C-alpha cells in the first residue's frame, strides 16, 4: 500500500515543451486575424447586411446542391447505416485498419483518374488516407525530412504551410521567389537560387513542394515547369511533392497537367520514387468537415511508412463508407466534375469582370476557388506595412475579409487573394458593389 507523503513545499509551475510554446504555427498572421473578424461579425444577407463578408476562406459551396440531391436520392447506399445491401453499422464502427476501406481507396483512385481525364492511372494500393490534406502534408514532411532540413516552396504559398510543414516537424521552408513579371511561374534561376541559399546557410534541402493548381494564384503550373522541376529534383536527388488539392477545380480540364501524367511515362524507378501527390476532398467536393485527405506516392517505403504514421490521423470509417459509393459512381462524378468546373469558371468571370469595372486587375487565372488581385497601385507606401494597412482598411471599412499577399509570403507587395466560391451570387455582387464604392471614393480624392 502506498503511503501519502506530506511534501508540499514545491512551488514550481510545471513546464511545457518547446513545441507547445512556440509560435511556428504562424497563426498570428492577418490570414487568421481576418477569419476572427469574420467570426465576430459575419455577413448575412438579411440579418447582418453590414457584416464582414468572408473572402479569406477557400471553401467551395457552389455545387453543394448536387451532393445533397445525390445523397438523398441514393439514400440506401450513400447514407450511413442499417441498409440492406451496404455493410452494417457494426462492421464500420469497428473498422480501424490504417490501410483504409479498399472500396474507398478504389473510389478515390478512380475519382482522381477522372479529374485528370484518364491521362494518369492511380493504384489504390498506393493511396494512404489521412484526416485532411493538412495532415497529409505534415506526414509527408515527417517522412521526407529531418528537423532543420528544408523544403523549397514557391512563393506566394498557402499560409497554412508554415504550420503544416514546420510546426511539429522542425523542418524549414526556403522560399522560391516568384514575381509578376512572368505571372509568378517558377523559373530555373529562382529554383537554383533558393537551393543555393539553403546550401549557403548549411541547410540540407530534402525536396520541393508545389501546389498545382496554385494557391493563392488560382493558376495551373505549366507542363514544362513541371518537367523542369522533376529534372531538378533528380539532379539534386531530392523529393518532389505536388499538392493537387484543387485539381478538380480547374475551369478547363485541358489546362491542367498533373505531375502524375509526367511520371506515367517514366519507367526509371529512381526517378518515380521521389514523386508524391497530396489530394483531398475538401476543395473539389466542398466537404472539408469530412476530413478526407490522401497521400499518393510512387515510393514503396514512403507508402508503407505513411500508412503506419497515419494511425494518428485516420479517416473515419463511416466517412469512408459514406463516400465510397458516391465516388465510384462514375456517372455522378463525371457530371459533378463537369458542372462544378463550369460554375467555378462562371464565378471567376463575374468577379474578374466586376473588379475590372472598378479598375482593378487580377492575375490571369484558370483554377481554384479564388483570384489573385493586384492593389499595388492603391498603396501609399509600397511596403509590407502599406499592404497591411490597406488590408486593414478593406476589413474594417468594406467589411471584406481577403488575404494579403504578405501572409502568403509574396515578395511583391500589393497582391491579395479573394475567395469567391463560398457564398451566393447575390453576396458576391454585394462584395463587388462595396469595392466599387470604395474605388469611387478613392478616385474622388
Amino acid at each position: 500500500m502506498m503511503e501519502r507523503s506530506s511534501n508540499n513545499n514545491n512551488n514550481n509551475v510545471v513546464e511545457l515543451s518547446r513545441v507547445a510554446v512556440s509560435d511556428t504555427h504562424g497563426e498570428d498572421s492577418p490570414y487568421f486575424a481576418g477569419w476572427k473578424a469574420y467570426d465576430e461579425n459575419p455577413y448575412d444577407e438579411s440579418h447582418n447586411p453590414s457584416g464582414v463578408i468572408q473572402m479569406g476562406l477557400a471553401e467551395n459551396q457552389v455545387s453543394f446542391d448536387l451532393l445533397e440531391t445525390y445523397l438523398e436520392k441514393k439514400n440506401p447506399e450513400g447514407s450511413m447505416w442499417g441498409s440492406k445491401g451496404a455493410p452494417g453499422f457494426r462492421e464500420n464502427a469497428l473498422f480501424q485498419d490504417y490501410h483504409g476501406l479498399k472500396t474507398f481507396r478504389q473510389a478515390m483512385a478512380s475519382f482522381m483518374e477522372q479529374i485528370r481525364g484518364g491521362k494518369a492511372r492511380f493504384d489504390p494500393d498506393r493511396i494512404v488516407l489521412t484526416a485532411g490534406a493538412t495532415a497529409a502534408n505534415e506526414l509527408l514532411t515527417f517522412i521526407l525530412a529531418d528537423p532543420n532540413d528544408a523544403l523549397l516552396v514557391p512563393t506566394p504559398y498557402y499560409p497554412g504551410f508554415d504550420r503544416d510543414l514546420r510546426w511539429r516537424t522542425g523542418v524549414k521552408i526556403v522560399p522560391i521567389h516568384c514575381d509578376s513579371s512572368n505571372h509568378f511561374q517558377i523559373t530555373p534561376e529562382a529554383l537554383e537560387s533558393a537551393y543555393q541559399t539553403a546550401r549557403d546557410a548549411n541547410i540540407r534541402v530534402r525536396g520541393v513542394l508545389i501546389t498545382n493548381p496554385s494557391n493563392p494564384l488560382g493558376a495551373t503550373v505549366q507542363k514544362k515547369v513541371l518537367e523542369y522541376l522533376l529534372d531538378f529534383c533528380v539532379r539534386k536527388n531530392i523529393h518532389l511533392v505536388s499538392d493537387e488539392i484543387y485539381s478538380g477545380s480547374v475551369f478547363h480540364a485541358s489546362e491542367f497537367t498533373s505531375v502524375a501524367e509526367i511520371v506515367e511515362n517514366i519507367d526509371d524507378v529512381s526517378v518515380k520514387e521521389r514523386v508524391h501527390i497530396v489530394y483531398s476532398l475538401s476543395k473539389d467536393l466542398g466537404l472539408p468537415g469530412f476530413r478526407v485527405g490522401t497521400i499518393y506516392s510512387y515510393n514503396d517505403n514512403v507508402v508503407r511508412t505513411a500508412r503506419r504514421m497515419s494511425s494518428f490521423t485516420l479517416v473515419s470509417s463511416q466517412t469512408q463508407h459514406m463516400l465510397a459509393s458516391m465516388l465510384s459512381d462514375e456517372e455522378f462524378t463525371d457530371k459533378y466534375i463537369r458542372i462544378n468546373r463550369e460554375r467555378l469558371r462562371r464565378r471567376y468571370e463575374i468577379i474578374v469582370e466586376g473588379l475590372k469595372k472598378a479598375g482593378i486587375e487580377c492575375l490571369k487565372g484558370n483554377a481554384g476557388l479564388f483570384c489573385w488581385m493586384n492593389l499595388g497601385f492603391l498603396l501609399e507606401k509600397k511596403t509590407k506595412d502599406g499592404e497591411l494597412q490597406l488590408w486593414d482598411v478593406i476589413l474594417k471599412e468594406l467589411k471584406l475579409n481577403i488575404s494579403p499577399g504578405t501572409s502568403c509570403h509574396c515578395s511583391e507587395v500589393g497582391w491579395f487573394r479573394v475567395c469567391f466560391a463560398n457564398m451566393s451570387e447575390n453576396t458576391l455582387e454585394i462584395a463587388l458593389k462595396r469595392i466599387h464604392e470604395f474605388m469611387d471614393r478613392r478616385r474622388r480624392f
Partner: protein
Amino acid sequence: MRVIVPLQGVVQGRGGLVLGSVIPCAFFYFLQFYLKRNRRDEPVPDPANQSSASSPNNSGSSSPTQSELTGLSRSLSRVILSPRNSGAHVSVSGRANSILKGGDSPYHVGLKRVADDPYDELGNPDGIIELGLAQNKLSSDLVSDQNSIGLSLSGVASYEPSDGLMELKMVVAKLMSAATKNVVCFDPSQLVLTSGAASAMEILSFCLADSGNAFLVPTPCSPGFDLDVKWRNGVEIIHVPCRSSDNFNISVTALDRTFSQAKKRGVRIRGIIISNPSNPMGSLLSRENLYALLDFAREKNIHIISNEIFACSIHGDEEAEFVSIAEIADTEENLDKERVHIVYDLSKDLSFPGLRAGAIYSFNENVLAASRKLTTLSPVSSPSQHLLMSTISKPEFFQTYVKTNRQRLQRIYSEFVKGLKSLGVECTRSNGGLFCWADMRGLISSYSEKGEIELWNKFLNIGKFNVTPGSCCHCIEPGWFRFCFSNLSEKDVLVVMNRIRKVCITCKSQN
C-alpha cells in the same frame, strides 16, 4: 603482435627489447592509420554530396548551363536521364528509416495473421481467433439500434473547429462523468477531441516533453505507447517494472529509484504515464494509489498522464470502484491540477474504433491551447461527430448501455477465467478493461523471453489464436499473456479453451 617477436630478434643488441617493441608497434599503428584514411576517401553514397560541384568528376554542375535551359524543349527522356544520378535512390528522413528498419513485434504479426485467417464459427472454424485486440464487440448491437439513417449534409460538410463540436464535447463529458458515477463533473471546455487515443497520447507527448526527454511508464503497459509517445516526437519511455509478487502494483519507491537513475544519466523526466483501469492487468487504482502518484509528481515537478480509455468497461463486483484521477485533482491546488491530464477514447467503451474519436482532458490551459491547435493535424470527421452525438446523447440508451455492457463483460470474463483455471492457468484479479492477464509461466519451455515467444508461436500456429505476449507489454517477468475476451461470444470461449488445452498438452509433453 606476431610481428613483434621476429623483429625483436632483428634489433637484439641495439637497445633491443624497447626498439624491438616500439618499431613494430609503430609500424602496425601507421599501417592501421593509412588504411583508415584510404577507406575514408572511398566514395560514400551520400545523396547530399553527389550533386555538389566540388567533385571534378561530376559531369555538369549544379547550376544550369545554357544547354540545360534550352533543354526544356527537348524530349522528356533525354532531360531526365542525367547519367550521374540514374540509379541513385532518394533517401527518406532518419525518422522514417528507423521505422523501416524495425522488425514487427509479435503484437503486430499476430494481428496480421488473424486478418489473413480469421476464425469464423461456420465459415472458417480452423481460422485464428483474435484474443490480442482489446476491442469490445459485446454491446455494439445496443449502439446500432440507436442509429437514425440518413443525415442532411448541411451543417456537417463545412469546416468545424478542429478540436470538436461543443455539443459532442458536452456529450463526451457526460459520458466520462457517468463512468465515475458522477462523483466528477467533467467540464466540456477542458476537452479536446482528436482522431483516436493514439493521437491524443501523441499530442500530449508533444506538449509535455521535448525531444530527448522521457516519461516514466510502469510496466507491464499497453503495447501502443511506444508508437504514440516516442515515434515522431523523439521522447523516450523509461519502464518501471512491477512484479507479480506485488500483484503488479505500482511502487513509488521504484518510480523514485528510476527517476534518480535517469537524472544521473542526464535524462530529464517530464512525466508519468499510467493506465486506469490498467492495460494489460485490468486492475483499478485506488484513491491512495492516485494520491501517492500525485505527490510523487508534485515532488519531482512533473506531469501525470492517466490513460482512462476503459473507464466505462468496469466489470468487477460492486466493491470494484473506478476512481478517475480527475477526482483527486479536483481536491488539489491549481499548481497541482496543471500537471494532470487524461486520455479518453470512445473506441473501447462504446465499440466505435472506426469512427476515430479520442479525447484529451486537461486542467492546464496552456496544454489545452496547444492541443487544440495540434488537432488540425488529426481532427474528428464531422459526420462521425454528428453520428456520435445523436447516438450517445439519448439518456435511455446511455443508462442501458453502461449497465448491459458491464453485465456482459462480467459474464464473459468469469467464463474465461474459469476456463483458464480448469486448465491450471491462474489470472490476476481484473476489474476493468477487456482482457485478463494470465500466468503461463508453467507452460514455457525456458524462463526467458525466448521461451515466451515460443509459446506465443504455438498459440498462434497450433492453437490458432492470437494473444499478446507479456514482452509486448514490456513485462519484466516472462510467461505472462494478455487475453482479450471481449471479441468472443460464450460459445467461442469453449472453442478457445479447447485450443488452449491442445497447446498445453503439447507443451507438457515437451517439457
